[in-house]
């Protein structure tokens, strides 16, 4: 089974990396870029448990390990069963 977790900054947290990339893109002429936010993606391979269990654990892992709830939000999905 394959899952993907995406972790990104909460909207109210400034993302200087994203900002820098936006500026770089502007200076390269891509003026139509209005905003860039950078986050992390985790591609996870799971084996030996049920999809149901996987859902439960993914939520737990994302919440407890992969994201820091003070500054980050996350989203996960199972992309291949």
């Amino acid at each position: 089974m394959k899952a993907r977790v995406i972790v990104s900054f909460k909207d109210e947290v400034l993302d200087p990396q994203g900002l820098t990339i936006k500026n770089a893109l502007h200076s390269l002429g891509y003026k139509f870029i209005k905003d860039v936010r950078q986050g992390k993606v985790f591609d996870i391979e799971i084996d030996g448990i049920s999809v149901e269990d996987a859902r439960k654990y993914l939520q737990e892992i994302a919440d407890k390990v992969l994201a820091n709830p003070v500054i980050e939000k996350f989203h996960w999905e199972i992309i291949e069963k």
Partner: protein
Amino acid sequence: MDKRILEQHNLTEEEYRGIVDILGREPNLTELGIFSVMWSEHCSYKSSKIYLKNLPTTGKHVIQGPGENAGVIDIGDGLAVVFKIESHNHPSYIEPYQGAATGVGGILRDIFTMGARPIAVLDSLRFGPLDNPKNRVIMEGVISGIAGYGNSIGVPTVGGETYFNQCYSQNPLVNVCCIGIAPKNRIFYARAKGKGNPVLYVGAKTGRDGIHGATMASAEFDEDLEEKRPNVQVGDPFKEKLLLEACLEVMKKDLIVGIQDMGAAGLTCSTSEMADKANSGIEIDLDLVPKREEGMNSYEIMLSESQERMLLVAKADKEEEVKKIFKKWDLDAITIGRVTDTGRLIVKEKGRVVVDIPVRGIVRDCPVYRRPVKQPSYLREVNYLEIPEVPNDLNTTFLKLLSSPTIADKEWIFRQYDHMVQINTVLLPGADATVLRIKGTKKALAGTVDGNSLYTYLNPKVGAKIAVAEACRNLACVGAKPLGVTNCLNFGNPEKPEIMWQFKEVVEGMGEACRFFGIPVTGGNVSFYNETMGSAVYPTPVLGIVGLIEDISKIMSPGFKEKGDYILLLGKNNEEIGGTEYLKTIFSQERGIPPEINLEFEKQIQDFCFELIDKRLINSAHDVSEGGLAVCLAECCFMSEKKLGIEVSLEDDIRPVALLFGETQSRIIISASPSDIDKIEKLASKRGIPCQVIGRVREDKFIIKQKGEELINLSIEKIYSSWKQAIPNYFKLSEE
């Protein structure tokens, strides 16, 4: 064997015949791969060997000269210093961050393989001009790569040098020097001794990383195979930190007989070299090698250059103890073979012998070339200099020179490096040499890397001598005596006679100077083929020198200390303008003949500077290098804590620009309290050293006069900000 296969392995037909001779049969593909990497220029030094062997390599304190992973020199108190420099030029161009990062990882392993704890890194960098965004991207990536690896592993990057020249646009140079300290009686060598002893593999799993050009192991010549298998590895500083701690812990106990890191040519190089050095043999089973990817064949496993791996030979009855220590650090140590006495490298896979080669054959019987040499024709052209008209506003000229990236402040760079971890850095980056205390002793080590390739381009031999002289001078300025040299020789394609000539001249010049100063060359690295699209980089020797300070209370720094102190010049101002930053920056001219170097005189100046420091007679010392006297004086002001100024009056009868910006060698600017001037002058005349008071330290203003006429008069703030802001300004553009 198919011609194309030989070509892809970079082997000539003659070399192939040599291989068949050694084996007494045709090699299989894996064996051919092994020969090809071991006989490559990078591993075998086949073009450079005949010159390098003339370098002085011995000395009273040398414990280990060239030939091991790093040089070792006795520094007393039961300690030895272990140091070495390496290049990572090509990977840093393709992937600046990872290329530079893995360069740091590699040189660190060379040092801790010898049983030393790495205590400092110095980086010598060459980039193309910064107005080209591509060069900025490379520079930014390289510097964050060095920072990313060094900072994480906790070895301070304490110094370096950074030059900019068009010739490095397509071919940046990234040379990294590492210094370590080990107990003198516990140095480890790459030797597979003792029949029956287990051979252990430790560290990262083996992947298909950096398997060179010849990646058609599976024998089908898939065109885009290359493309799919990147030649750049990703570094894992965390794993290396664990390896470092675990190896040092193992070494503290009497558990192993030999150890070698897996760098270039990975498992092939480490197994065969270890066996060769111990006159033994080695037998390994590839099925036991930890692999990151599935379906790897013997060719790929033997040639992989995956990072953060070590090979060690344990004492037969200590195998378990070794494994336990690695386990503690979350690392697996796996026995993959045994030491034998057959003199052969035997590799098994799935029960079959896939490699059976006499170790000597790969390590020692590799071809050695005396390649044709020819003095290049460009020299006559560039050595001719029509001196351009003197700019009428020397103030503006001076500001422009101060903001040329080669001369400008490098804090933007070294602030990204943790240069304080391990709490030994007594003289921070910014000085002529960095100084590190040695805990538990009164001593300190000084280190510097140096090399002006514009000089070597204009005159390879003189340039090389200057590189040695300047590096030693940098040490003298902090109060250190040179212990030994390591060097990195960055050149173009050695198959071109002109390049080979440059190489020969540089090595001769370097050897002459080192012999003269009595400094052993204990190691180094040659990087050929630094060419892109047919044009080579300037011949670029980089010298890494380590020096010793016996009494740490006597170290000296370059910045002026007190208002009212006298400023003195050791040495003489000559009218020399060829090869200067001034000509390059102001007139885009890289020509003329480089400054002369008289080694005898140079040594007198250095010894005198050292004596003044030793007698505690001076308050600062800084050598005159790129940018000449004016830039040197400015740097002394910038490096004073209070941002002091100067008023200097010169009486020399030479052209003002040569006086201000000429790069005559063997000069040092010192400053001293008024009460010590007498003593200094007396001592100078006793020693026959040219030493003259040229001015005083003051506040605010930076004034230089010649025969009463003002050449430069600027506020300190103004010159400071030109120098300080130049490099950050280039990067603001993209950050704004």
